[in-house]
């Protein structure tokens, strides 16, 4: 049984709002890099990058991606498969990284992605943007920019793409 929670239009509006928040929070976008977590976060990072370029024609932010699977703490416990090559597009050293993912759940993927970023350099700050925060955190991690807070039970599946958000 699949239930639609956000329509494509809702996702688009949330993306626009998050883009505004990222610009406001970072007072201009000097040294900001958007980094989508492979694979689910990449579309949102690209959508946020496009929105930021549309809102503020003067500033564009690099949009990269990172594969965190080699940094997971559950290799051998759960299936872990690197799916794409990391491409950061700009120097991490001293940058403000906005990590982007589709759904924030246990927080373990985000922890792995932060460890991975650390191997490329020492960012000035790391912020976190997610389309859906579904709760059930297992680590002290909270998002800075959220599309939608969504109460779920732990055994449900949440999918967030540019075509909307569904629970199954």
């Amino acid at each position, binding site marked *: 049984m699949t239930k639609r929670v956000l329509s494509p239009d809702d996702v688009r509006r949330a993306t626009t709002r998050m883009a505004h928040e990222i610009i406001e929070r970072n007072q201009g976008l000097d040294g900001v890099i958007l980094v989508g977590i492979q694979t*689910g976060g990449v579309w949102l990072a690209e959508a946020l990058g496009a929105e930021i370029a549309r809102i503020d024609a003067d500033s564009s932010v690099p949009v990269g991606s990172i*594969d965190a*699977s*080699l*940094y*997971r703490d559950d*290799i*051998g416990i*759960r*299936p*872990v*498969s*690197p*799916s*794409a*090559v*990391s491409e950061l597009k700009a120097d991490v050293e001293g940058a403000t990284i906005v990590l982007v*993912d*589709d*759904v924030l*759940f246990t927080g373990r*993927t985000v922890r792995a992605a932060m*460890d*991975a970023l650390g*191997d*490329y350099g020492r960012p000035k700050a790391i912020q976190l943007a997610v389309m859906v925060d579904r709760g059930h955190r297992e680590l002290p991690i909270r998002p800075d920019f959220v599309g939608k807070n969504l109460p779920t039970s732990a055994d449900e599946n949440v999918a967030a793409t540019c075509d909307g958000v569904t629970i199954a």
Partner: protein
Amino acid sequence: MSRSLLSIEELGEVGVRRILDLADTMAEVNRRPNPKVPALRNKTVCSVFFEDSTRTRLSFETAAKRLSADTMTFAVSQSSLSKGESLRDTVETIAAMGVDAFVVRHRSTGAPWLIDGWTQASVVNAGDGWHAHPTQGLLDAYTVRTALNRPGGFDGLRVAMVGDIKHSRVARSTTAAFEALGATVTWVAPTTLLPPAIDESTRPISDDLDAVLADGVDVVYLLRMQNERMTEALVPHLREYTMRFGLTPERAALLEPQTLVMHPGPMNRGVEIAVDPAELPGAVITQQVTNGIAVRMAVLFDVLSPDSDQEALS
């Protein structure tokens, strides 16, 4: 149930593609200033080499270390095997120390399969007799894939595999890997250096390198020609071998600049390769060595992370 890598044939086309995709991720790790990730930090990899090898052993150990695995080396010359301990007892003793993967080289065909049957640990075949050397096949396929930018596969790719096919596990595994991805591999060798009872319907065979090169090839793969083949009277003289099957300056001049020239090493300069590879625009022999690390990282990660072909949950 542990996963092992024993031959290209058992890996199959899907497995070959999975490893090569993984190798892209590993190659990116190797390009970083600090080429190390924590992926296998709780794993122990033991190299067990019953036959001399420096290059392959170093390549595997580097791969394991870049994935943060612990490594052990079992050197046969210093071992209890010289005191008469059986292969099985040796393997079971090392396994009892808590080894997650064995990297095995043995002069006898099939030894890695035997060891795989005796231990719960994963086994990676690093060369058994004349039979198989699957990680070499994979690194050769990866080298062609990246050098010619063919991520989709090798359909229509023409490869000439030249030299001592009969005694070469590299020839067998590399041919299998290329063919799994759709390439056409022609075996070019004197009849004495072809395997017995060869089936010419499987793949083209030739004893005329010039004719094969004149037809056009995308990859020339030169195999190592060993001196003892001459004492065994399989070739009359190494100089005659070079004249007919070596990459001489005359033949090199006829190659298209984009034709890849490959060699598994160590090279016998002046025998199978009578030109300086540094002067060949298509030579990728150094890249083969570099790619070997990324491919072996992919193999170790693949055998030590169960069901890694399934998509990870987020």
